[in-house]
């Protein structure tokens, strides 16, 4: 019961402090919200790249390119045979015209080149999904087929993308750490300023026998509130920014299709980001409040 009474006292005093130093609180919230917005932006990119890579990893799409003199019938027969193999799914025969249409849709320049040379240089190909455990056996089965020119495996591209993604993730994590430290530093300084502004009140409280927890806790609550509001504002601002970027810029990235399909973060991620912001507020203000010394 005592704990509950004390806690309600801290909350009320913390809220009173928060509203009393309104300008400082707003300043702190704005700084935190900018940091959180950038973190939200980065997290969204990271989340989408990660989802895309996982999707590719779990369901890799292979392309089997056939020699230029292969007829459509030979291609169709091979496709039908592949469908019967274990671990193979989504087999689709792609004729040169259809292949060029797809290429031109993703890379308009390729379409222009094709129309200028008036000849379609693309061979017949077969697109299919192969279960990772069946890849070796499928390759073995295809070896005797002289019409198979090459097999395109997404793994090289995937591993390249993964190493690029981990390099970018490291960079993002580094920036996030800097932003988190900057926010904690801001909250620390704002709370220090409010402590200095209320030094007289603090001295009075101490002289009448107030325990340190009664003096320090409201400042901790004040910083935590700044973290909470900064977090909510930053997450909203960040997700709004993503919507704008997606609608105005990413929609035109045809050759990186996953960018145009970028999705907002799931609610659990938003909750995590706001929790991070609250923790920043709690940490910065606790650090500042711990420097109040006994009179």
């Amino acid at each position, binding site marked *: 019961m*005592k704990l509950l*009474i*004390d806690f309600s*006292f801290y909350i009320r005093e913390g809220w009173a402090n928060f509203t*009393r130093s309104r300008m400082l609180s707003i300043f702190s919230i704005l700084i935190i919200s900018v940091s959180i917005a950038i973190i939200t932006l980065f997290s969204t990119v990271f989340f989408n790249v990660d989802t895309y890579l996982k999707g590719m990893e779990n369901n890799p799409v292979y392309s089997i390119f056939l020699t230029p003199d292969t007829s459509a019938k030979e291609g169709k027969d091979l496709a039908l045979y592949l469908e019967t193999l274990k671990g193979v799914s989504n087999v689709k025969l792609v004729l040169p015209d259809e292949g060029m249409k797809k290429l031109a849709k993703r890379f308009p320049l390729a379409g222009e080149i094709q129309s200028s040379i008036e000849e379609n240089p693309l061979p017949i190909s077969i697109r299919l999904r192969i279960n990772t455990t069946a890849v070796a056996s499928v390759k073995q089965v295809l070896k005797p087929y002289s019409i198979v020119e090459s097999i395109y495996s997404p793994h090289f591209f995937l591993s390249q993308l993964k190493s690029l993604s981990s390099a970018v993730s490291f960079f993002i994590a580094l920036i996030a750490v800097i932003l988190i430290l900057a926010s904690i530093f801001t909250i620390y300084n704002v709370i220090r300023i409010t402590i200095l502004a209320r030094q*007289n*009140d603090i*001295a*009075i*409280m*101490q*002289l*009448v*026998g*107030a*325990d*340190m927890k*009664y003096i320090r806790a409201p400042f901790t609550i004040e910083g935590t509130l700044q973290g909470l509001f900064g977090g909510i504002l930053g997450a909203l601002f960040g997700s709004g920014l993503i919507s704008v970027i997606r609608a105005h810029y990413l929609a035109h990235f045809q050759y990186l299709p996953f960018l145009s399909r970028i999705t907002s973060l799931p609610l659990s991620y938003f909750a995590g980001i706001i929790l991070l912001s609250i923790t920043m507020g709690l940490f910065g203000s606790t650090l500042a409040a711990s420097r109040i010394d*006994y*009179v």
Partner: protein
Amino acid sequence: MIHFFHVSKVYEKGNRALHEVNVSIGKGEFVFLTGPSGAGKTTFLKLIFREELPSYGRVVANNQNTIALGKRQIPDFRKKIGVVFQDFKLLENRTVFENIVFILKVLGYPASFLRDRAFYVLKLVGLQHRYNDYPRQLSGGEQQRIAIARALVNEPLILLADEPTGNLDPDLSLEIMALFEKINSRGTTVLIATHDREMIKQMRKRTLHLDHGHLQEHRK
């Protein structure tokens, strides 16, 4: 209750406030501390509630040596001492009622007790009708009475008052002194620093006289 053993207090630049003070004040005593301005009265009080530490000697209040008190023990030590400060030290951004209730809250009193107790002490100092005003809206005398109410609210074992009637008219001063006597009659040790000689004469209590840091005693 309060003991000074060979206490000297020297501030920076060698400014000596108290010199070799030896005195004992028993439980339930009513004592005046008098002397001219700058004699060391405020320092004497500050040493008791450990706002200051002696440069030499030892101060024992409520059976606790103030030098030996750890930082974390200070709040508990002060909870048993009510202080009326010369400059009132009221919380400017809180109402009269909040100023008094705040003490009870930080001392851990239950919520049900706060309101009744706060109004009781406000009634004692005759300011229950100003409960919703802020200190800046009160006169000097009213602020002083609020400071007295705040010092009394948790029924301390020791009550220290630094010039508590300095801003009050003679009639009100007598009323406040009667209030201090009433508190004292309940067993609280009362020590009042004042240079109001007329008051001291009328009250006929034990008087400690400080002059340039030296203590002399007059028993009536």
